[in-house]
């Protein structure tokens, strides 16, 4: 089973790369872009048939390795 995870910076945490991307987009004439937040995307292939069990394991992975909860939030999709 494949589980997908998105890890993003918490709101309020400085995202200098997102800021640089936003400014570049503005410079490319995408004038309406007001904010960009950059994140990470993971596809996890897990040997588990039960979706609930798989997601619960991925949640543990997020808390212990994939995300640093000091600055990041994660979403399992």
């Amino acid at each position, binding site marked *: 089973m494949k589980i997908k995870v998105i890890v993003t910076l918490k709101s309020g945490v*400085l995202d*200098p790369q997102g800021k640089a991307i936003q400014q570049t987009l503005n410079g490319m004439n995408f004038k309406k872009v007001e904010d960009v937040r950059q994140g990470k995307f993971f596809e996890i292939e897990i040997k588990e048939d039960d979706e609930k069990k798989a997601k619960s394991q991925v949640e543990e992975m997020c808390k212990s*390795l994939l995300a640093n909860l*000091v*600055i990041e939030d994660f979403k399992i999709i």
Partner: protein
Amino acid sequence: MKSSVIIFPGSNCDRDMDVALKKFGFKNQMVWHNDPSIPKSDLIVLPGGFSYGDYLRCGSIASKSKIIKPVIDFANKGGLVLGVCNGFQILTETGLLPGILQQNKFLNFICKNIFVKIKDKENKYFKNIKKDILELHIAHNEGNYFCSEGELKSLEDNNQIAVTYCNENGEDNDQNNPNGAIKNIAGIFNKNKNVLGMMPHPERMIDSYLSGEDGSLFFENLISNFN
């Protein structure tokens, strides 16, 4: 005094640290990250570098190494653990130190000499040190220290801020903040002050011809605090 320097794949300041520790009298040994235990030590050092290529987050993969469990046990028993640069990043990822080192505010890799102000001397690292301001070297892309407001208050209340970026007169304000670190923080302790993480490299300042000697002061003082 015995010290151990842990080598991770991608560490690159491990030999500099070995040279520095031996120069000031430590009997140092190098320990591989996959070893199950650490030889008897008075001090464990996590050196600078790019462990595991900085994949995922700096220090995050190294913080799950086999050797980290004995490092945490050693720290929890009061043993001295020093993390420099990538070593500091690893210590925050293990949870031995609060907060995290984020990418530098202006997205640039910074490699230069800076000054730091010693904020607390009631600890084995800086007790009796002859100076209040040290000139050291930084070389990092992720040195922008960040923590929650609650954690910052706790760091301040317990005098856990070890060193802050400043100028040669000790002014630790925004003008003298190279990477955007909250409150100019360059290094912090854990609550018991046996664990120290800092971005500046004292091991790069131990030779009057090549650099400066404020790193020498740090190591001389550290070993004399053991004796």
